[in-house]
Structures are given as structure tokens and as C-alpha cells.
């Protein structure tokens, strides 16, 4: 306890932790945003063209088996970014999160009641319009859950980037470890958890705002 207070007492340390935290936030959340933008069209494709399903889900699975560290390092070799660029981590995590989200998006779209889609079609919606204003809003509960899982696991994954120097709070782990100093590690772990909880709460709030209609039924027990 003492050592933690001592560790946190230092102004330089505080600044560093804050910097790391900010870095952690954008390294973990930017990919979620990008992944949603990618996963929605991909998920829609699998929903619409069922034969794509096996293939795309298979690819997503394989992507998910690649160790994150490997992606962090391979990406600059593949897309030619600077080796220390945060873009690498963002790109890698975007790929992961996309892989994670494709299926929930497809499932969520599949789960939109067929009769609602039929009704929309019958009223004269064009397909894209229908996707954006009917199917996607209805997919939010399932999609939102996917985004929550994705952001939480990203927040935990970012720290692996510490092994190549771009790890947000993860740097506290390597630093503490090399100095046999548990305080930074503990602080890093706790901050990561807190960050995840806060982000999760925020996502829940956003989701609740977007799905007021879904809870409307609960009140009357529908």
C-alpha cells in the first residue's frame, strides 16, 4: 500500500500515467469505432448472401487465432506504416474487433423479425434505406452487446502493445516487471479495469438511449 502511494505521489509519475491512460483510451476505442463501420457492411453481406457465411465466419475465426503481438508487428511490414506508429495497434485491434463483430452483426440482422422487414419492403422502402432506418436500429440490442464485448476485450488487449512500446497502460506492466516493482503493475491493472467498467457503463447508456423502444414493452409486461 505504502509503495503504491509513494509511486502515485510523484508528479512525474502522475503525468506519465495520465498520458498512458489517454493513449490507452484511443488505442482501444478508435478500433471499436472503425470496426463497427467495417463490420456492419460485412455482417450485412453474410446476412444477405448466406453462402458467404461459412467463408467469412471462418476467416474471422482464423484472424482471432493470430496472437495480437504478431499483428502489431506484422502490420507495419504489410501496410508500410512507421514501426512505432500507433496506427499499427489501431489497425490490428480494428481487425480483431471486426472479426469479433461480424457475426453479431449478421446474427442481429437475422434476428430482425421477418415480418417487420417484409412490412418495410411492402411499404416501399429501398434496400439501403431499409437497412439504415429499420434493420440497423432493430439490431442495436444485439450489436450493442457485441460492441461491449469488443471494447472490453480491446481495452485488455492494448496492453500487449507494451512489448513494442505502444501499449498505453501496458507500459506500466513492463516497467514494473523489469524493476520488480508491483506498484505500477497494480496501478495499471486497476486503471485498465476501471477504464473498462467506465466505457462499458457509457456504452450501456448509449445503448439504452438508442433502444428506449425495447424497454417500452417491459413496462407493460409485453
Amino acid at each position, binding site marked *: 500500500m505504502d509503495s503504491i502511494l509513494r509511486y502515485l505521489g510523484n508528479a512525474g509519475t502522475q503525468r506519465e500515467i495520465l498520458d498512458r491512460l489517454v493513449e490507452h483510451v484511443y488505442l482501444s476505442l478508435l478500433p471499436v469505432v472503425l470496426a463497427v463501420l467495417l463490420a456492419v457492411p460485412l455482417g450485412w453481406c453474410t446476412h444477405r448472401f448466406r453462402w458467404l457465411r461459412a467463408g467469412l465466419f471462418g476467416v474471422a475465426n482464423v484472424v482471432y487465432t493470430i496472437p495480437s503481438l504478431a499483428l502489431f508487428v506484422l502490420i507495419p511490414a504489410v501496410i508500410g506504416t*512507421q*514501426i*512505432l506508429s500507433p496506427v499499427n495497434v489501431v489497425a490490428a485491434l480494428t481487425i480483431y474487433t471486426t472479426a469479433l463483430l461480424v457475426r453479431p452483426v449478421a446474427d442481429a440482422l437475422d434476428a430482425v423479425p421477418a415480418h417487420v422487414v417484409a412490412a418495410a419492403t411492402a411499404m416501399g422502402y429501398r434496400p439501403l434505406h431499409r437497412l439504415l432506418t429499420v434493420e440497423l436500429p432493430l439490431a442495436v440490442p444485439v450489436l450493442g452487446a457485441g460492441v461491449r464485448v469488443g471494447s472490453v476485450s480491446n481495452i485488455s488487449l492494448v496492453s500487449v502493445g507494451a512489448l513494442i*512500446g505502444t501499449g498505453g497502460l501496458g507500459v506500466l506492466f*513492463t516497467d514494473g*516487471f*523489469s*524493476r*520488480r516493482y508491483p506498484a505500477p503493475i497494480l496501478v495499471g491493472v486497476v486503471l485498465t479495469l476501471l477504464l473498462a467498467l467506465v466505457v462499458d457503463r457509457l456504452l450501456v447508456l448509449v445503448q439504452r438511449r438508442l433502444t428506449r423502444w425495447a424497454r417500452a414493452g417491459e413496462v407493460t409486461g409485453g
Partner: protein
Amino acid sequence: SSETLSGANQGSGDQGGQVVVGSADFTENKVLAEIYAAALRNAGVNVTVKPGIGARDVVIRALQDKSLTVVPEYTGNLLNYFDKTNTTTTSDEVYAALKSKVPSGLAVLDQAQAEDKDVLVVTKQTADSGVTSMTELGPRCQEFVFGGAGEWPQRWADKIKELYGCTFKEIRTTDAGGPITVDALRNGDVQVVNLFTTSSDIKANNFVELADPKNMYPAQHIVPLLRADGVSDAGKAALNKVSAALTTDKLAELVSKVDVNKETPTDVAAAFVKDNNI
């Protein structure tokens, strides 16, 4: 002085007025990076620090792709990195050779007197059993398991065999002089490890450094490696002042302040820069 100013502007070059000081992922290097940064700041340069990057290969790639501007380096290893065939080992020869081998675009400044060499270390017990130098180690290598960084065998396995006739029973990957290596030696998982001369772990654990009479490990003076156009002259002068002030003992003390006393590299560096009026 207008020249210095324009030089500074030039130096900031691609980084948009920023000099980025990088460091490898061990304490000493991080402290050195902070010292460089503090010195540069005092010289009026706009600095950020990117500590804990990792192995040399990554660091140098980063210098080359302009992610970094300056890093603290070690003469012997750096030379070896740029020129695998090189055989020189003494301080001056190494430094001279290094200056000539640094690829264009990069440059080294003055080397410090301070040195942080690779060194093979054994426990007191092993030493007492008659192993106090690498010459004595050579014939008994078969008894021992060695622990070191992943790249050690590639670099040194042949060399140590050639110079001292040493072939270890097994070479195990631990880490680059970090806690894993130390713990492995302490637990007896391995009997010989590669550490660094400034490591505070050696004294703390009563480990014994093995003498290297045939100079297998080259001299390893601290030297700033930088992008030639990345730092102003004033900055370069400040870095040279740092090198002038650094001695091996001083360095060991700085490392120990961070590793043992758990001070922050930034604070330790600030104190050093202040004490030495840089």
C-alpha cells in the same frame, strides 16, 4: 547564434519541431533517455520521450523511419549491429570503427567514459567451486546451463567456444538481464547468466562477475545515436556534456536509484542534469 537557431529549426526537421528520444526497455537505457531529454530541453529543444521500445533492431528501424531522433546506445553492440564481421574490442578502436560504420543519415556523438558491458555472472557458490573467470569457466561449461536473452546464442555461442572453448550444457532463453535471468540464476535453474555491469542485481545477490581476459565482449561505452539532421548544434553540445559527465559508477548509482529505490527515471535524470550543470 542565428546559425544555432536555424540549426535547431533544421534539426527538428520532420518531427515538426519535436525531438523524440527513444529508449530500449531496460532501466538504464530509460534513465539515459531521460537524461538526454532533460539536457536537450535545457538547451532549448522541444523534446518528447518514448521509453521502453524494445530491442535494438526495432529502435534502429524506428530511427531510420524517423519515428525517433535520439537514443542512448552502447558502442560495442552498436558497432556489432552495423558490422557483424567486426573484431575490435577496446574502447577507442570500437568507437573509431563505429564512427566509420554508422549508416548515412545517422550519427554518434562523443562516447561517455561510463560503460555498461555484458558480463557473465555466476553465484557465489559456483565461483567458490573454482569458476571466477571465463577462462576457468571454459572447460566446465558442459556442467552448466546458461541463461540469457533470446538473441545471445546467435551472437556469442560460437565466439565463446572459439575463445574459451566453452559449450554450455544447454542455453536457455530468459531475458536481457532482467528479473527472469536473475531469478533463474538465484533458483539454480541456470548456473551462468549474461548480465550487465551496471546491474544492481549483482551486488544485491552476491553474484560474481567472471573476468573476460580475452575481451570477448567489446567495450560498451554509452553513446548518443541520432539522426544526423535531427538535433541542433546546441542540442548536440548538451548531449556531449552529458557524455562527459557520465562515469560507470555514476551510472550504476543512477540505475540503482530507479531499480532499488524505485525513484522515477525522470526524477533521477533531472537530479543528475542539475548536479552536473548541464
